[in-house]
């Protein structure tokens, strides 16, 4: 199943009508919310730490170009080679060239959303390289020919029944089972040999520490450790916003990341990589590469308000608490990053012309902002994106594809409305006409009355009613107001 952001509305419609999707997401979101609540018992502590994390990320972003240079310098000093890519195509070409340089065919990949963002698997597949996802959830969606529906739990849209059937269908000699331990053990056995013999390991990065040239990876399964340890070459791919200045910045960010994401005080593994193996070490990669990807991030950076988008540490809490995401799931968005964060980051990556519906897929309830560990003002940014989408003034269209949702008819309606509002006589005339012709209103077809009862205007306008009241209550002026 492949979805696209241009088809958001029909996809959302289909998801809403799918009881399995509804049940799987409802269950998963309730689970994740409760888990988070369990490790954030104290609101005051959360808000204090949230403030610290927000400020760390803001400061790091304020110094982003300098920190990227410092990161590069320290990585190089540690023996980590650094590559830069402006576009997904450039990032894929860099990774592909590295694999070719080592005559690699077998690639193991630990979970990396940036690799999803650049479409690495399809790119390598087309070039005869087999890149296997080793995170259990990613492995399941890859086996099913799908894409992740959640940034932390990629296979959250599937239940054990569906996964048991998938393994039975796709993996040789595998009897159907719904026992989770058995299923995980099947996955483990499938990937053991791959780890043992892989030429290249690819992972993402959670934090890149500028002062030490260190790449940090957060995970529970050990596949990230294996992907970065077992093969002779490790390629880490990440967005330019992941850099932090000091090693001391890591503990607060890590604490809120894992608590917000999966409700753990810390994950099973926190892996800090500061270089390839030294000459006396017996294992570990001989080469470590870091690929820094822009892909629209510099566009978000150029605007002080949109820049806050880059504070994101990819915990997924905004998805887990979003009433829209909970009901339609991750695939309906048609973007690599679904949910609230996806709605504010995707327009920079894909262009507003391709993501027109996303900023409108929100009730602006604010739950996402409330739980965000780095305090990103998501609802405010969504409103700014809506303005950009409909921006009529070409000089104010700062984002790629801005103004693309603007309709001449809609703009005209607003223009007329504005005119009426500042011309009282015309305004009265217009509202009175609507009141008189109220029986005709239901005949006007609009998306509003497709699922709702048509509004029927009152026989008299508010103005008329007040006017009348003003006469009968002439001696009670307070009634007029």
């Amino acid at each position: 199943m492949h979805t696209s952001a241009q088809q958001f509305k029909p996809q959302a419609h289909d998801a809403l009508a799918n009881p399995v999707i509804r049940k799987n997401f409802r269950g998963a979101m309730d689970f994740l919310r409760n888990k988070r609540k369990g490790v954030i018992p104290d609101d005051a502590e959360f808000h204090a730490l949230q403030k610290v994390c927000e400020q760390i990320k803001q400061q790091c972003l304020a110094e982003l170009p300098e920190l990227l240079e410092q990161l590069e310098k320290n990585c190089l000093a540690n023996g980590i080679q650094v590559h830069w890519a402006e576009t997904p195509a450039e990032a894929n070409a860099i990774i592909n060239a590295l694999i070719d340089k080592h005559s690699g065919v077998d690639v193991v990949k630990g979970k990396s959303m940036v690799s999803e963002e650049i479409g690495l698997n399809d790119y390598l597949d087309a070039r005869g390289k087999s890149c296997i996802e080793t995170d259990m959830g990613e492995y399941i969606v890859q086996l099913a020919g799908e894409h992740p529906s959640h940034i932390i739990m990629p296979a959250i849209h599937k239940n054990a029944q569906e996964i048991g059937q998938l393994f039975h269908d796709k993996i040789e000699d595998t009897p159907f089972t719904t026992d989770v331990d058995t299923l995980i053990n099947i996955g483990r056995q499938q990937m053991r040999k791959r780890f043992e013999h892989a030429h290249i390991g690819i992972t993402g990065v959670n934090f890149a520490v500028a002062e030490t040239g260190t790449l940090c990876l957060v995970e529970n399964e050990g596949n990230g450790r294996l992907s970065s340890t077992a093969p002779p070459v490790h390629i880490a791919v990440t967005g330019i916003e992941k850099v932090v200045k000091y090693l001391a910045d890591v503990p607060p960010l890590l604490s809120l990341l894992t608590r917000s994401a999966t409700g753990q005080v810390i994950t099973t593994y926190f892996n800090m990589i500061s270089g390839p193996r030294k000459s006396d070490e017996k294992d570990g990669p001989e080469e470590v590469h870091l690929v820094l990807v822009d892909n629209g991030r510099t566009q978000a950076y150029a605007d002080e308000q949109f820049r806050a988008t880059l504070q994101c540490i990819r915990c997924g809490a905004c998805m887990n608490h979003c009433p829209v995401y909970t009901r339609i799931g991750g695939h309906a968005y048609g973007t690599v990053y679904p949910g609230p964060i996806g709605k504010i980051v995707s327009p920079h990556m894909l262009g507003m012309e391709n993501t027109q519906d996303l900023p409108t897929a929100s009730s602006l309830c604010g739950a996402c902002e409330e739980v965000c560990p780095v305090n990103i003002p998501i609802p405010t940014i969504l409103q700014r994106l809506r303005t950009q989408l409909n921006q009529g003034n070409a000089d104010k269209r700062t984002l790629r594809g801005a103004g693309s949702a603007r309709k001449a008819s809609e703009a005209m309606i607003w223009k007329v409305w504005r005119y009426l509002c500042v011309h009282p006589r015309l305004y009265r005339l217009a509202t009175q006409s609507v009141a008189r012709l109220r029986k005709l209103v239901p005949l006007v077809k609009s998306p509003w009355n497709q699922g709702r009862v048509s509004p029927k205007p009152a026989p008299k306008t508010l103005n008329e009613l007040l006017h009348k009241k003003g006469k009968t209550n002439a001696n009670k002026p307070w009634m007029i107001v």
Partner: protein
Amino acid sequence: MSHANTSNPNGINKARNNILAKLRGAPKPEHIATLERPTHNWAEVADPIAHFSQIMETNHANVYRCNQADLPATIEQLLAEHQLTSTLASKDVLTYFPELERKIPLAPQTDLTEWKDQLYNHTDACLTRAYASIAATGTLVLWPGANEPRCLSLVPPCHIVILDTQRFYPTLANFIEQEKLAQGLPTNLLLVSGPSKTSDIQQTVAYGAHGPEKLLVILLDTE
């Protein structure tokens, strides 16, 4: 500044220069709150060892405690208890247990490629040393190096680790600060807080996803 050698160094430099130029061209923030980067402990831990043990056990690890004299017997006991027959130990463990070699063979002192098959397919446990521990989150700090390959704590289904009870830090922030880690990190520093696990299938926890299914922690009282 020197750059990575790739097939197209000019193209790469172009990307680098463009990205940095775009970032430098962006407006500087008007006001950024000056953050006192925290140097204090995030949490006070009253009884670090008890706290650590409790979280570790909640995370499905087994915790044992003994003094140096009892270490050989303790190791023997848990090898029997978990039916571990083919075990390798890291050289770092000899610090605590010089006669270890008589009980458990040391991992070969050669490149892992030479004994990969043994480690991946014929070893059911490895014994390593923990560099330190973080009480607040129930976390072991591993510091692999020349004497302790990274894969020992990762590939076999069981990981046995010896932790000196003198090596407790209350929090990660405190550990980083006290150990002056910003001035020198090993090629691979690892925090381990339980056996490998996943909840990727219907939010049900399963252990031994890719790393060890069992984590046996021996708290060693060295005084």
